[in-house]
């Protein structure tokens, strides 16, 4: 019964999406006020029905309703409750429902927080969001219905044991909030082009939405990386897998978009570029959705692949982006801006920043799809993997970080070279010193000097930027939150860079065979293999090793495990990790070697937590920026103006 309600709600949501699209867009085009006002209620109703539908699916999982095929394939009675819920988005159909739900929620939020935006614009924005919704809802109802029924088996299969983890339960929703959230600035960009003009106000409206989506995407990607590290047992945190790249590319372009919007808002410049970036960012989101579900690329993350489904997504992708880019081709010339700025100015700095981000994105894109191209040309199979991406990313991030440090200091329109250089020289000295210090402490490495030096460069110059802002301000609160958001974002990047540099260069790993009581010394820590125990969990059994790691003063117990889940024969590792701010100790359990010994892998990973710490700082920066009072102030002023106008009207 409930799954049928869920299915019906899905159909109703599709109906709402149609209403949300057709009437507002036509109304905006031809001036029918009544039709324009349909947008907000339709968006809210769509969100309501999708929430209902989603709730029905969650219920089906919690009630172990195996007559629903999706539930039977991804859950079973012994699955812990938390994972029954997260199993809802664990595979193709359910994750699509989540996608559609989150899109509807963003649309609903736009409908609530758009009081300062003219109705025509809001109508168009919601209409565009409606088109995307229609695509996903149709896709689900026609090819990937999560509510399909089957004759109920007694027991379901299982949620892939890899996904039975808190980090991975939270990762997709967070990621989708970001991915999908980029549809909002996209919709704003299309709406502006449809309206035929683009001004600084448009940029101001788009910014908080872009920052919010960016923030979610940052945290979503970080969660995935952190999860991979502690769950997969090989100490890695990024593999440049096609699906990882599919989430990273929108992030890169969203970062460029955030900065471009700042320029458009403050100076009215870069209008056409900003629109193009908004289209590009969301296109990459849709492309990512395509890559993951169509089977064109091999990936550990890929959902069940199906060329027929792939054709649908590709067609939808081609339609949405193709139309957007056609609109851009036609209207692009009208929305251009010709704003003057000097070679040495913040505008130039941000342009350089955006160029580098876009080039990095293109490199990642090319590396990801090159195997397809290579095969399509008849040259055979090819793999493009970590060595390729690591190399180019490292090379391109050098000018990016250099520019990052400088750009925050630059003044709008025109800056003074001499004054700037005076600020940069101390930064250079401090950065080199930091690099040398690191080298003395950890060991010789040019890469380390470069990486840490660049990070310190950014930190120092961020400090200078703060000092400059504070000078001549009576109150701290007169500095807009957007500024602090920027500083935090940049500091986050610096912290991230330090983590990546130090852990990539100075990590130590060793595979040893240890028997009970035997030890091995690694990077100043003695790892002692105490004993092995058999363990039982709710839906698995396994072995647990008890290892002590000690460096003389400090001692910690680690519990690496090997589990076999009843549902699949796939053995899983749970690593024993001692997390620390300056280093992680990591132990993974392997196979018994006979003669009482076990294979263990020992890791010492310096500063690896700084990688995710950096992303958290970036995320906080995003939140701070979104809550900038200037966005709220404008809404308040508009309301006051409207109120005074209407009161005058009443008395007249």
């Amino acid at each position: 019964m409930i799954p049928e309600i869920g299915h019906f709600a899905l159909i109703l949501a599709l109906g709402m999406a149609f209403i949300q699209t057709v009437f507002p867009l036509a109304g905006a085009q031809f001036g029918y006020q009544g039709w324009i006002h349909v947008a907000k209620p339709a968006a809210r109703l769509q969100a309501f029905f999708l929430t209902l539908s989603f709730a029905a699916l969650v219920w089906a999982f919690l009630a172990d309703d195996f007559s629903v095929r999706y539930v039977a394939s991804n859950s079973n009675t012994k699955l812990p409750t938390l994972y029954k819920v997260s199993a809802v988005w664990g595979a193709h159909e359910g994750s699509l429902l989540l996608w559609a739900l989150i899109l509807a929620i963003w649309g609903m939020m736009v409908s609530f927080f758009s009081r300062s935006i003219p109705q025509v614009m809001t109508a168009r924005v919601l209409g565009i969001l409606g088109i995307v919704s229609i695509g996903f809802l149709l896709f689900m109802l026609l090819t990937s219905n999560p509510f399909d029924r089957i004759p109920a088996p007694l027991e379901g299969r299982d949620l892939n044991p890899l996904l039975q983890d808190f980090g991975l339960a939270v990762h997709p929703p967070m990621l989708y909030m970001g991915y999908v959230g980029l549809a909002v600035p996209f919709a704003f960009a299309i709406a502006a082009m449809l309206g035929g003009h683009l001004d600084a106000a448009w940029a101001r409206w788009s910014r908080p939405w872009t920052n919010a989506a960016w923030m979610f995407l940052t945290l979503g990607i970080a969660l995935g990386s952190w999860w991979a590290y502690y769950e997969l047992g090989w100490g890695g945190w990024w593999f440049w897998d096609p699906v990882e790249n599919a989430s990273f590319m929108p992030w890169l372009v969203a970062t460029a978009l955030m900065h471009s919007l700042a320029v458009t808002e403050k100076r009215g410049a870069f209008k056409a570029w900003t629109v193009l970036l908004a289209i590009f960012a969301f296109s990459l989101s849709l492309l990512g959705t395509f890559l993951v579900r169509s089977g064109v690329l091999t990936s550990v993350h890929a959902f069940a692949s199906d060329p027929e489904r792939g054709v649908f997504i590709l067609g939808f992708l081609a339609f949405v982006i193709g139309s957007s880019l056609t609109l851009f081709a036609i209207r692009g010339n009208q929305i251009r801006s010709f704003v003057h700025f000097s070679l040495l100015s913040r505008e130039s700095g941000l342009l350089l920043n955006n160029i580098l981000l876009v080039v990095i994105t293109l490199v990642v894109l090319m590396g990801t799809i090159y195997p397809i191209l290579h095969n399509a040309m008849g040259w055979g199979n090819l793999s493009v993997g970590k060595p390729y991406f690591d190399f180019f990313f490292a090379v391109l991030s050098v000018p990016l970080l250099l520019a990052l440090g400088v750009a925050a200091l630059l003044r709008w329109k025109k800056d003074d070279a001499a004054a700037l250089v005076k600020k940069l020289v101390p930064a250079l000295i401090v950065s080199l010193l930091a690099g040398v210090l690191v080298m003395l402490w950890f060991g010789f490495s040019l890469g380390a000097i470069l990486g840490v030096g660049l990070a310190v460069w950014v930190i120092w110059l961020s400090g200078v930027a703060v000092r400059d802002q504070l000078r001549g301000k009576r109150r701290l609160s007169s500095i807009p939150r957007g500024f602090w958001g920027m500083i935090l974002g940049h500091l986050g990047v610096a912290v991230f860079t330090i983590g990546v540099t130090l852990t990539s260069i100075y990590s130590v790993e060793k595979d040893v065979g240890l028997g009970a009581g035997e030890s091995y010394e690694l990077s100043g820590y003695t790892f002692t293999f105490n004993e092995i125990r058999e363990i039982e969990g709710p839906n698995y059994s396994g072995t647990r090793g008890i290892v002590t790691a000690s460096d003389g003063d400090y001692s910690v117990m680690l519990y690496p495990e090997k589990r076999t889940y009843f549902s699949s024969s796939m053995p899983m590792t749970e690593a024993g990790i001692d997390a620390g701010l300056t280093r992680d100790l990591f132990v993974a359990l392997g196979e018994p070697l006979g003669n009482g010994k076990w294979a263990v892998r020992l890791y010492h990973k310096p500063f690896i937590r700084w990688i995710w710490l950096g992303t958290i700082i970036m995320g906080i920066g995003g939140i701070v920026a979104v809550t900038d009072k200037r966005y709220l102030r404008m809404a308040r002023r508009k309301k006051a103006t409207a109120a005074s106008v209407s009161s005058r009207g009443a008395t007249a």
Partner: protein
Amino acid sequence: MKSLRFAIPLIIFIGLMLLMLKGLWQDPKLVDSPLIGKPVPDFSLPELLDPSKSVEPEQFLGQVWLLNVWGSWCPECWREHGYLEELSTRHGLTIVGINWRDETADAVDMLRRAGNPYTAIGVDPETTAVLDLGVYGAPESYLIDKQGIIRFKQVGAVTPQLWNSELEVLVKRLRSEG
């Protein structure tokens, strides 16, 4: 015209979409073999049913033969065996097997139950010959000509469809070669 530059993103996008469309009908997991057109790598494996004898590619020079990698742990191989038997009896195709990473008892049992299409079977428990052949899964088969050159590789089972569409013609052609 100045505004033509705004059409550039669209043009690039169309190119990308065409590429993706082509990509949908490719299987990224089917790896081409670099050994096509090269002589079959040398190996000397003990014969499954008589370990005192050895199985070597030189023994099959002068005829067109199929080298089939299989194991009793591989469900697809079980299904394939019946058809291979038909190929060897009805079409007179010489089939040489390599039993990969298997227990002798299990392999013999499988032959008894699923049929034995093989003229000879080499045993490779340690992935020595199989590695040289560039095998990455079972079943895989190689069609080898009279000079000992690999002319065709099939990843996956040899099926009636494959025989009818490609293999039969190829075998005939190779047999007619000098």
